[in-house]
């Protein structure tokens, strides 16, 4: 069972499963290296459009991760928040309901970098419900063709 996803912050968002958030990851022939030592860089919320339907994720970084996150280039599926938070939307319609999107999960989160400006962020998905995982899996399968 996959316990983590990694979001590759390319021009188009790519979502992949990974077993572990190791310090180095090779994804689609690209070598990503951890940008920060920590594997707990902030709280995160799954952005839900309705019960079980996840449309994105919001990372609320700790102070030590703020600077690194500001280096990530802006992308169309991304919104940088005033408190250094970062919202990443999995679909074009990025509507979500705040009241059901307040996990503040404390699972593993890791920031990676490849080359000069390619970034990826890994998230622990163990706390998602079965239905949430199933729908997320449908999305990932569709995205990856």
């Amino acid at each position: 069972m996959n316990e983590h996803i990694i979001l590759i912050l390319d021009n188009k968002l790519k979502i992949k499963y990974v077993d572990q958030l190791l310090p180095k990851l090779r994804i689609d022939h690209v070598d990503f290296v951890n940008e920060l030592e920590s594997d707990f860089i902030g709280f995160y919320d799954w952005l839900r459009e309705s019960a079980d339907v996840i449309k994105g994720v919001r990372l609320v970084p700790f102070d030590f991760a703020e600077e690194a996150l500001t280096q990530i280039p802006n992308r169309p599926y991304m919104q940088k928040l005033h408190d250094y938070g970062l919202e990443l939307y999995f679909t074009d319609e990025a509507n979500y309901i705040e009241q059901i999107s307040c996990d503040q999960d404390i699972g593993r989160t890791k920031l990676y970098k490849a080359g000069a400006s390619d970034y990826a962020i890994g998230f622990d998905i163990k706390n998602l419900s079965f239905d949430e995982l199933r729908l997320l899996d449908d999305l990932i399968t569709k995205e990856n063709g």
Partner: protein
Amino acid sequence: MDNPIRYIDEFGLDTGKVKPAPKPIVLKEVKVTATKAKKKSDVDPVGTNLFHHAYKPAPWNHDDCHCPVLDQAMILAVIIATDGLGDFLEGAAADESLEGLTTEELNAKISDSQRDLLRDWFKDIKNGADPENVPEGLTKETLKVYEQVAKNAINAGKDARLGVQAQRLKYIEKAIKVIKK
């Protein structure tokens, strides 16, 4: 000639009258019970809320003791006069040591297994569980460290949107009392 003055024993001095013997005193055993008075508010204008400080001492060197009457030296004196001194000193020392740490250092103090327990506990509470149902193995030390992480997030303005960390502080306060027992 008869005496016109009537005899009246006004002060009961006539020993010729026999008074009834007093009933013997019988001691009865009674059960004394007490209930905790409901706290009406945090305001204690006459300083009667000493037990608040005795049982749950506010850190004497912090600003968050709102007692309007007792100053910090008096609070310390009350704590010393009670059995709470050991816990007080231990708690104050732990709080002091955690406050000086960065968030990264605090995170490093929480092991993966403790973080998983903490995570499960938060998830259970979100699903309706009682916060006092603390998972077996989750330690008071971990709760104290997380408490500081949450406080840092709140102080940095990162909890303003959701208020989740502020709510977790309340859960932690309850849980620490349970673990202490």
